[in-house]
């Protein structure tokens, strides 16, 4: 049950990555670290200004959107037609920069967004469900719904889908594909921002948490397949459940291990994921 709720959160983490990967075929290795940016941002807002983390998203989302827009617009757009490696390595570089900035500013000590409600739990039948997990899940559903409607009903959303299917044809429609890509990255970062805050509410985080969340995000995308929001959700749930199960059976240290094994297995056998189309 907890795995299900956790899965929602993981799905949000994966959503941003999936968007960028699906549209631009670009793996943003810094995705996790950018989400953690939002965690630290909320942390600062909370510890210095007493602002609730979710409220800090009001600023956090636009800031991260701008960062994402800049990354794609200034850096990635230059190189991503050169092949898959350059963007990968740029993202890697950004990841390094971010992780070490966090290290320098906030030390390896783990931080958490501990608000009052973060510690509450509800009792449902036999289970104790932490309130945060419920919040995570609700947030996840809202985010996924928003994305679905956006992609289906708006011109921009359609333009993004068109650009991901055939960028040349998209240009013939009058779509400025470079700008659309930058926008997509920005939107992806908006999801990362949301993920970062909710992750920070649920778990403690350190400068290197980004890596773990990246792998989770990647796992979500791989398991669920590209281009499918539902698939991403399922992927999140699978990983969430795997984590809870391995934590229960093998001990706390092994939590992510089973998840990693599952991801590797799927990568080997069916790289396009369960629901993938590509």
């Amino acid at each position, binding site marked *: 049950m907890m795995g299900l709720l956790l899965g929602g959160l993981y799905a949000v983490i994966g959503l941003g990555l999936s968007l960028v990967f699906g549209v631009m075929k670009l793996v943003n290795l810094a995705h996790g670290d950018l989400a953690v940016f939002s965690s630290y941002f909320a942390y600062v807002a909370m510890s210095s200004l007493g602002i609730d983390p979710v409220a800090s998203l009001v600023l956090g989302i636009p800031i991260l959107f701008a960062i994402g827009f800049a990354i794609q617009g200034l850096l990635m757009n230059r190189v991503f037609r050169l092949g898959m490696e350059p963007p990968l390595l740029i993202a890697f570089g950004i990841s390094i920069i971010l992780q070490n900035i966090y290290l320098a500013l906030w030390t390896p000590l783990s931080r958490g967004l501990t608000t009052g409600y973060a510690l509450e739990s509800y009792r449902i039948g036999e289970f104790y469900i932490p309130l945060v997990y419920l919040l995570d899940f609700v947030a996840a559903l809202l985010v996924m719904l928003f994305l679905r409607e956006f992609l289906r009903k708006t*011109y921009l959303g359609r333009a993004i889908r068109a650009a991901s299917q055939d960028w040349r*044809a*998209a*240009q*013939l*429609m*009058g*779509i400025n594909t470079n700008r659309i890509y930058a926008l997509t990255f920005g939107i992806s970062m908006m999801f990362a921002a949301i993920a970062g805050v909710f992750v920070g509410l649920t778990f403690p985080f350190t400068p290197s948490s980004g890596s773990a969340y990246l792998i989770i995000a990647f796992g979500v995308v791989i398991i669920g397949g590209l281009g499918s929001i539902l698939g991403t959700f399922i992927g999140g749930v699978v990983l969430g459940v795997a984590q809870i199960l391995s934590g229960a059976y093998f001990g706390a240290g092994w939590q992510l291990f089973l998840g990693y094994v599952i991801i590797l297995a799927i990568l080997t056998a069916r790289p396009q994921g369960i629901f993938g189309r590509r």
Partner: protein
Amino acid sequence: MSEEWTLNVDHIDVYYGAFHALWDLSLEVRKGEIVSLIGANGSGKTTALNTIMGLVHPTKGSIEFSGKRIDGLATYDIVTLGISQVPEGRRIFPDLTVLENLIIGSYTGRARVSKDQMLKRVYSLFPVLEERENQLGGTLSGGEQQMLAIGRALMSNPELILFDEISLGLAPIIVDRLYRTVEQINSEGVTVLFVEQNVRRSLKQAKRAYILKAGRVVLGGNAEDLREEEEVKKAYFGV
């Protein structure tokens, strides 16, 4: 725009990397005309269209549309100015529905306002598209995809449409219908520049034509005059 305009391609050179694709090429299209580019495979017809659309840029010469230079512009800006292309291979969006494909055609500002109007027009030209409105583009037959591609190009409410080899891979009966529609589109006020493998059809549909060979214009003039020319007779027999 209802005033007269011309598309002026003026002595352009185009390279694909090191390959010299177009040599000192000039052509002209006036508002309301149907003009065609004729030539064997590799003669540069598609390259010419792509250059006009800004997918490739000329290294020399200029392209002007209604007095405005467009040869350095990005494709999406050129579309905004009123030129649309039905690309070779159709290139419809496979994972968008027919309706979505058409709607995305009216992405540009100038087209969005008249979206519903244009949609009605497209549906009246191609009723089958309305039937298949909610089907994914990738599931359509070749002929239907071609219609979708043409409809999509119309959705941007263009002054000029470039048609690139719309007959490829289609049965003659379907091609006939397509070209009748092209005529109708032209009669409704849209200027047409098209590239067509089939020389006979080319000269039948067009009012004026240019003959390309190895990236150069070797002949240009009225379609009926051209039919008599040696070069064209050679082209008929696929030399």
